[in-house]
């Protein structure tokens, strides 16, 4: 049938609409709509990685966006975001364990780091291991939440061996305290 519209633009759409109406049944439309709706409903069930969703980009700090959770002997291990010094994990200890022959300081300072696997913030106790000379391996400088030395409670430049039998610094550990609020 010849389009009744006069405007060229209208003519194009009239032709498409008429062809569609003549060639497709109403059931065809309903079935396609049904498939579309079912499809849209199952999209969230797809087994995709939700890392990005768990941690919105705006929340991820510079450190966390480059952090990893597998190798505690690297500076970018997620718990070291505020660790300043030699990693105990490189000195015969673990990320939260002092090497043999040193003692964990009874005092520490508590900061927090984002775990890039789940995007959550965890409280971390930065505790120095004391009693032997500096370990000298894996020197790292994480500075998140680190305050200047005139706020010593949250400063990582000072030696945290207060209350320990020896004030000699060996390495820094980063123990997990809990999941932040």
């Amino acid at each position, binding site marked *: 049938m010849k389009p009744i519209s006069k405007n060229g633009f209208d003519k194009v759409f009239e032709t498409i609409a008429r062809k569609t109406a003549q060639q497709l049944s109403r059931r065809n439309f309903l079935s396609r709509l049904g498939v579309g709706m*079912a*499809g849209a409903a*199952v999209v969230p069930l*797809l087994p995709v990685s939700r890392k990005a969703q768990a941690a919105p980009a705006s929340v991820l700090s510079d450190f966390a966006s480059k952090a990893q959770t597998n190798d505690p002997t690297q500076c970018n291990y997620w718990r070291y975001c505020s660790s300043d010094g030699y990693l105990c994990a490189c000195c015969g200890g673990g990320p939260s364990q002092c090497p043999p022959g040193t003692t964990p300081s*009874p*005092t520490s300072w508590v900061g927090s780091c984002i775990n890039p696997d789940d995007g959550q913030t*965890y409280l971390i106790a930065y505790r120095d291991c004391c009693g032997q000379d500096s370990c000298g391996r894996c020197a790292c400088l994480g500075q998140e939440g680190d305050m200047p030395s005139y706020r010593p409670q949250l400063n990582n430049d000072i030696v945290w061996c207060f209350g320990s039998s020896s004030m000699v610094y060996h390495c820094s550990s980063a123990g997990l305290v*809990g*999941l932040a609020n």
Partner: protein
Amino acid sequence: MLPSIKHRVAFAALTCCLMLAGLAWAGDGSDSSKSTSRLQPVTREMENFARNCQGCHGDSGVSVNEVPTLANRIGYFTRAKEGREYLVQVPNVALSTIHDQELAEMLNWMLKRFGADQMPADFKPYTGDEVGVLRKVRIIPTVRRAEVVKLLEDRQLVPNKDTLSLPMRTTY
């Protein structure tokens, strides 16, 4: 005989759903190897305590000689008005960066955790407004503490003279 279009569509959608749900379930629990995956978040009071106090005072409120003990001690201070005020005016509490309301909540939580047995039965929790006023007052901590402790001892609000004594003279 072919089933109607409606049936075919419904069947296809159902199959799709089941398949995808199965895949999603199989992909779950990928974090099971991480030690952090089962932790419950701490409360706001606990987090403020952890970030501002716990490192030195210890999570059980007992630490080394350099850091005064909280456990089984701070509760006694709430037995007198002056002691109640002192707990807010002690410098690391008064000068902390915690807001009045959260500071009041944290102090109430600390008293419950470290001093429940020593608090008077009619103890009224700190409020944000009260803390806001109290923390503005500057004290000389060693001097003020000695005054408050003497007052508690004179009124027999502490069992004996050792109860609130400190192992190091410069601490408070």
